């Protein structure tokens, strides 16, 4: 084939950028187009809460340097992808243009899930908290003061609460679940993080649900009412799969294999819109987190460009902190438990069948990656000094041969 290959990526965030870098590692020449419906240079989505708190400003939001698109010879199109014509191998854009492709990646991310609350349309000021424009809209609504109600005590809702701290007269976080961060923490860990957030004045209404909105008042199931000036909807997210409906297999997300291929020829998917095997449990699921997004995207890019890559080590994992309290978690929480629960340390390791399944570390997180690698690599625990590694994560727990290979061998 003498004609240059045409690569098209829908999405300009971690998965899309990973794919662009993967493509250019493999094929410096082919034409590469990135399509985004946002009017921005690639930025880091998790940083929007840091933008609110002022810890990051302007150029600090950029996920890659200003010269990124020129350096990688990328054509960036700011328009929405409306439809994929798989038979005609082209993407139809909101401005009427058609972009032909040989290899296509959908890295369209996810959108806020908004439950059908009665009276939501009577709320004057509300916003989701996923995109840069959401953060800017929220800033505009706040006016330096005001009472904020955040619906959802997950990662997004709580990072929003932290970012808004000091910029609102009252912040209340409400969730159906009886604990915060129910997707990544157990009850004990959640209680620790909650008390840190409460120490900074953030209030919680847990095991609570909203019956309806009456203007700027939330009426709860127990008839209690909460007045607010700004509502943040952080109940959950939904993978953006619609563009591949009827084209590729979709479960909760777009189903991909270890090569980031969908079931449709020459169409790949990566990031928050994709669903793949969780290496810690063997189950197929959406693991919407940035490192997996980047690595799925990079893997897709290399394969799109004719290289050989596999990313079969995706696991759920999160590093997050609140007001200086670090939290790192990975895997799933079943099996027997090793635990340490002291004033500055909350640590739980979950294991069964000779494998580490998951862990929760709060407060003291040094060398957490040693545990992550035991989960990711499915290391048989009888080949290491498991008692030692529980106490103290390190390479000491491995055999001398393994250590020599890792520390003395060639580059990995």
């Amino acid at each position, binding site marked *: 084939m003498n004609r240059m290959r045409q690569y098209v990526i829908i999405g300009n965030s971690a998965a899309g950028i990973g794919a662009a870098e993967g493509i250019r590692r493999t094929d410096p020449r082919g034409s590469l187009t990135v399509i985004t419906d946002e009017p921005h240079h690639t930025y880091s989505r998790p940083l929007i809460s840091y933008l609110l708190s002022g810890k990051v400003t302007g150029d600090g939001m950029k996920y890659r340097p200003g010269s990124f698109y020129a350096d990688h010879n990328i054509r960036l199109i700011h328009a929405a992808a409306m439809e994929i014509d798989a038979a005609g191998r082209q993407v139809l854009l909101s401005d009427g243009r058609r972009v032909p492709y040989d290899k296509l990646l959908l890295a369209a991310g996810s959108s806020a899930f908004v439950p059908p609350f009665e009276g939501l349309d009577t709320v004057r000021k509300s916003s989701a908290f996923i995109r840069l424009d959401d953060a800017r809209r929220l800033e505009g609504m706040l006016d330096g003061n005001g009472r904020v109600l955040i619906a959802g005590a997950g990662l997004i809702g709580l990072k929003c609460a932290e970012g808004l701290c000091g910029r609102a007269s009252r912040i209340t976080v409400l969730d159906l679940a009886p604990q915060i961060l129910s997707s990544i923490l157990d009850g004990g860990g959640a209680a620790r993080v909650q008390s840190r957030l409460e120490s900074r004045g953030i209030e919680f209404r847990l095991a609570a649900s909203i019956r309806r909105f009456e203007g700027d008042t939330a009426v709860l199931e127990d008839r209690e009412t909460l007045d607010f000036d700004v509502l943040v909807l952080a109940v959950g997210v939904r993978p953006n799969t619609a563009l591949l409906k009827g084209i590729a297999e979709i479960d909760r997300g777009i189903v991909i294999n270890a090569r980031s291929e969908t079931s449709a020829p020459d169409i790949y998917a990566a990031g928050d819109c994709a669903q793949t095997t969780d290496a810690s449990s063997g189950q197929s699921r959406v693991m919407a987190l940035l490192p997996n997004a980047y690595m799925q995207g990079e893997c897709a890019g290399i394969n799109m460009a004719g290289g050989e890559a596999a990313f079969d080590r995706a696991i759920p994992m999160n*590093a997050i902190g609140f007001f200086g309290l670090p939290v790192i978690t990975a895997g799933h929480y079943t099996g027997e438990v090793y635990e340490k629960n002291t004033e500055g340390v909350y640590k739980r390791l979950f294991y069964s069948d000779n494998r580490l399944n998951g862990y929760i570390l709060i407060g003291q997180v040094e*060398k957490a*990656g040693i545990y992550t690698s035991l989960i990711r690599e499915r290391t048989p625990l009888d080949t290491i000094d498991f008692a030692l590694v529980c106490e103290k994560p390190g390479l000491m727990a491995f055999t001398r041969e393994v250590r020599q290979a890792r520390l*003395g061998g060639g*580059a990995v």
Partner: protein
Amino acid sequence: MKRVYVREEWCLGCHLCEYYCAFAGTNETDMARALKGCKINPNIRIEENDGVSFAVSCRHCLEPLCVKGCITGALTVSGGVVTIDGDRCVSCYTCILSCPYGAVSPSDGGAVQKCELCVKTAGGTPACVKGCPNGAIVFEERG
């Protein structure tokens, strides 16, 4: 590319590498004066247990999980060296979650810290290698 390699059988567990590492970033001329009374936070760390000891620092992986997972773009590869831009780091610790060697750590200044082969400090030979009294840490090409 040249990398730092450890020879476990030669490590005395003297921790001098940790001191040379911490000293390399100080711009001082006298190590004792620079570090006396300080709690050091070096980028190379001795692990020891039951008579065994060895130093661990960043491997500068060819497929660095810390760089791929970095949420801000603060970690990059520059001439083969995995490098941290402290101004862009927000201390989310995704790199600490990711590194299978435990070679990225929190710093006193906010950003994470890691070995950068002394490219920003001593230049040329990493200070830990130069300072090891027993040749247990070497800087060489092993492919």
